[in-house]
């Protein structure tokens, strides 16, 4: 682990991410009971999912600790995915 973080710090960050993921899961389920409007509910769901995905990729998948070039590399398919989803969603509105 070339991050300069101690094992204890890394372990602590894993548990923090775990708690955050559980809270965000509870949150994304809770907001479905409130009707903000069809589009708003979808946007909230996607934003929470992206936040969870970011936590998993950054901490669990070590993108925070690895060489920064890996982030650009991984970013390319994610860019295509987000573009595809957004384009199709906007076209369908």
């Amino acid at each position, binding site marked *: *682990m*070339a991050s300069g973080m101690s*094992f204890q710090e*890394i*372990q602590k960050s*894993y*548990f923090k*991410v*775990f708690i955050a*993921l*559980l809270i965000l*899961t509870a949150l*994304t*389920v809770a907001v*479905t009971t409130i009707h903000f409007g069809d589009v708003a*509910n*979808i946007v909230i*769901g*996607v934003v*929470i*999912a992206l936040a*969870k*995905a970011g936590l*998993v*990729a950054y*901490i*669990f*998948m*070590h993108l925070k600790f*690895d*060489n920064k*070039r*890996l982030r650009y*590399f*991984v970013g*390319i*398919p*994610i860019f*295509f*995915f987000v573009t*595809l*989803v957004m384009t*199709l*969603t906007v*076209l*369908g509105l």
Partner: protein
Amino acid sequence: MSTLATTHTRFGTGIYHGKLGMWVFLASEIMFFSGFFGAFIVLRNLNIEVFTASAHMLDKTVATVNTAVLITSSLTMALAHLALERGEQGKFRLFLFITILCAFGFLGIKSFEYATKFGHHIYPWTNTFFATYFTMTGFHALHVIGGLIPMIWMLGKSLVKGYPQEMHHRVEALGLYWHFVDLVWIFLFPTLYLIF
């Protein structure tokens, strides 16, 4: 000779081959699942009533529990790698074992969901929503099984003669795959169960 001497090849990304290879594979996996999400959005926009009615037939509670199970397995997988990196064989075995249990738990809950749907005479050919639902969750479940096989192999190896500490990179690469499977579910969960 001179061309060889002047060719400047850059190494040293600081990322070992196994990890880089796994990321290349995961990049292709992102595109694989993108196709499903694209198809889902197009079909949903064409059949909004069918999709809304069908999605309300899914069991949100069971899916929420399954999300928690998969998140827990991601945590224990990360902890298993950390333990092996520190040379703690006992902890490594324990966390890997919990990860395997969670994976079986996820598959069990998913099977229960499928069985309930079949019991209500709902099949992949029932309508376009269930066609995409069973395709997406089915391929995701196959990925879970695909992760279970090397995990069980690693646990078996560690029980027989101990998993070599210097091979912790393999556990990290498997962990990357496992977290990706978790990531796919993080997007499937709101898409199929929550946004309608």
